[in-house]
């Protein structure tokens, strides 16, 4: 053990004359310090307490946590036992009973007129029942598929955090089966499939899967968001009535959500869409505070620049930005794996034309 490089233990009495005390807030006067230092004096500076309890942020720590909370509130919610659920189920039951009663009566009436008409009525009623069942089944499958994607998201996030190889392999295999029916992902799937058989660390496997499988889908989603944002801002800018704006923005948002869900492998029906919208709403609410430094300032600035040109144009930019935010939230919630190897896009990455990029601006105006 050489004591040459290492400092020897030292002690400095605080009541010594040559010692200047300083705490972080009121540093000793600089001239005084320099003076004392030159005379071989010493400054003892109190440092902030490393063990002082820190205020924990009330908001989720990062984007990943926000996404999982949002997913839990919508897509993954199991809300069958709530009062609201009971109300709607009971109402639905009553309505379907009423419809059944009505259908029976019509068929009976038809039979009373002629047997042929009656049989046609029976056939039509059967067709209605069968198609209803099929629709219901599809609805259920869509919900389960969405939930499956959200669960996979959480599992992959955990596996990546823990660098757990087995969990990562299981997750990667599920990813592969999720996109098995997509011809355009064939090459990426083959690559990931090979890697799951080789010795690759869990985290690396997930990162490779993300870079290969997700990147093209992310690009698709970005394109959808950008074009929706463009359409919305353009229509808002030129539409004659506010009502038209509102309807158009709403319709575009719904379309965008469905498209993004489809891109990432979900096929939401009506109920699935309601759940998805819940999740996206939750995600927007949670990340709204987190993004305050980012997009709110941008919105104000963007609005300012555009509003100087025309009030209508400013509204267009705002609506476009809102659509973009919705699209990004939908992207985070629908994606079957967390953003890790790839960066989560921001409003500015997806829709740069809303921020006065001169080349893009020409497209709008």
């Amino acid at each position, binding site marked *: 053990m050489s004591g040459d490089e290492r400092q*020897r233990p030292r002690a400095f009495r605080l009541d010594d004359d040559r010692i200047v005390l300083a705490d972080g807030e009121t540093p000793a006067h600089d001239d005084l310090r320099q003076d004392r230092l030159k005379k071989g004096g010493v400054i003892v*500076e109190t440092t902030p307490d490393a063990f002082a*309890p820190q205020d924990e942020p009330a908001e989720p720590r990062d984007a990943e946590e926000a996404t999982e909370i949002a997913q839990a509130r919508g897509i993954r919610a199991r809300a069958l036992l709530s009062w609201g659920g009971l109300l709607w189920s009971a109402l639905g039951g009553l309505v379907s009973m009423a419809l059944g009663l009505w259908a029976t009566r019509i068929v009976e009436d038809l039979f009373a007129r002629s047997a042929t008409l009656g049989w046609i009525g029976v056939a039509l009623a059967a067709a209605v029942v069968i198609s209803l069942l099929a629709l219901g089944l599809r609805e259920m499958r869509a919900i389960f598929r969405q939930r499956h994607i959200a669960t996979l998201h959480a599992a992959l996030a955990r596996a990546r955090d823990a660098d757990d190889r087995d969990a990562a392999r299981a997750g990667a295999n599920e990813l592969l089966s999720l996109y098995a029916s997509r011809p355009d992902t064939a090459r990426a799937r083959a690559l990931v499939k090979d890697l799951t058989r080789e010795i690759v660390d869990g985290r690396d496997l997930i990162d490779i899967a993300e870079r290969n499988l997700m990147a093209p889908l992310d690009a698709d989603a970005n394109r959808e968001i950008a074009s929706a944002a463009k359409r919305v801002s353009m229509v808002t800018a030129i539409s004659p009535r506010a009502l038209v704006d509102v309807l158009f923005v709403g319709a575009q948002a719904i379309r965008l959500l469905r498209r993004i869900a489809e891109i990432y492998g979900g096929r939401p029906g009506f109920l699935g869409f309601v759940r998805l919208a819940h999740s996206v709403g939750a995600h927007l609410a949670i990340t709204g505070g987190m993004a305050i430094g980012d997009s709110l300032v941008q919105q104000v600035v963007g609005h300012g620049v555009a509003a100087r040109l025309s009030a209508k144009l400013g509204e267009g930019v705002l609506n476009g930005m809102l659509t973009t935010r919705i699209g990004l939230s939908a992207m985070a919630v629908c994606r079957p794996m967390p953003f890790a190897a790839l960066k989560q896009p921001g409003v500015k990455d997806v829709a740069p034309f809303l921020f006065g990029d001169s080349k893009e601006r020409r497209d709008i105006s």
Partner: protein
Amino acid sequence: MSILSDLLFETRIAASSLADYVTGAGLRLGVTGLSRAGKTVFITALVQNLLRASTAAMDGERVLPVFRVHAEGRLMRAKLQPQPDDHVPRFAYEDHLAALTGDERHWPESTRRISELRLTLEFERRKGLRQGPSELTIDIVDYPGEWLLDLPLLTKGYAQWSRETLEASAAAARAPFAADWRGATLAVAADAPESEAEAKRLADLFTTYLRSARAETYALSTLPPGRFLMPGELEGSPALTFAPLHVEEGAAFAPGSLAAMMERRYEAYKAHVVKPFFRDHFARLDRQIVLVDALSALNSGPAAVRDLETALSEILVAFRAGRSGFLSTIFRPKIDRILFAATKADHLHHTSHDRLENILRLLTARAIARAEDVGAHVDVVAIAAVRATREAKVKQGRMLGEKSELDAIVGVPLPGERIDGETFDGKGEVAIFPGELPADPKAVFRGDGLGVPEGAADYRFVRFRPPVPRLAKDGEPLPLPSIRLDRALEFLLGDRLQ
């Protein structure tokens, strides 16, 4: 005979744990540590923090932020309760707290006898079937750390113990102060006729040797039997009047010989002292915190560090770790969480805590591996149950050249502590740079140094006086400042307070 007594021993343990289960005893928290590791201070600080946490929270103080049940506002209050064992003295919590926070501000006296305390936490359960108000009872046992050294004796015969003790005393580090007793022992023939006077003489010499080895300058740890150092009420009894002899292992001693007498007394010591202690206090633990004063051993030198490692791994064999299930909870409680804590972490800057933890991890590596094998949770942490220092940066002029900033700690050293050629009076505050622990934890095991003088060591950890207490609005002291006490609590109790 031995099998029968073992069986009886186990049966009594199973019976007492069954009785515990039926009467609804609480969580038994074992606070383990060699002498001077800080058991008493830890228990006092733990109890005081829990008792005062909710009051402090109402005063707007942030205490125990990592201890979730408190941080989430679910801990309503903690209270002391009459303990279950009527034959064990109560832990003198009030006296120890008064010592720490009184005008004199001194550390509690070293523990001379066993004592016990029962603490009940009232809290709200957050999840599970039993949501809502709930209680957790914690039983804490304090005892002289010296007694812990006896646990390894349970598996050793007299001859084996004699051989090991003689071998240990021959090591270079111990030779200087072991010489007297060693010379006397080797001169005595094992088959000499038994004589009370001779036994007394050898036992006295042996005790003197143990005492001097334990002295602060050397800080050795492996010194069984423990009652020789801290005799309690047994002082002078035959069970404490024996010493190792130079005997053949495996040979039978002639009746009436000195060796036979010594062996009988050794066995009596095990039967009357060690076994009851183990049965009543160690066989029934649910959670365990092992406090290790690594800094004293580091102060003394590599030989003391190695000695500490031997002592720890021998002691920890005696504990029953493992995953606990329903049946084992009833008949054979197992320790399912073990926390190894390097105490007195406030004696060095927080940037060195990782290194201290690494050293502790290495010290207890064998024990950790064994506990993890059987499925117990293990963690290692550097804590200070009572934090006596604050941190500062010391900036110097040209004197030190390149590296002119030192990470120092500021506190009031105990009177008589020495560093850097200065001796302190226990009054003024001093900023101390204790030196740097090596980045490679193995470095502290290399070498033969023992009782290394202050000027020659790369680091020197001085002891500080307890901090000046801050008072709450009701005039009682606020929870004593600590380092990572909340993390230790969360690890040990957190899962039962969900």
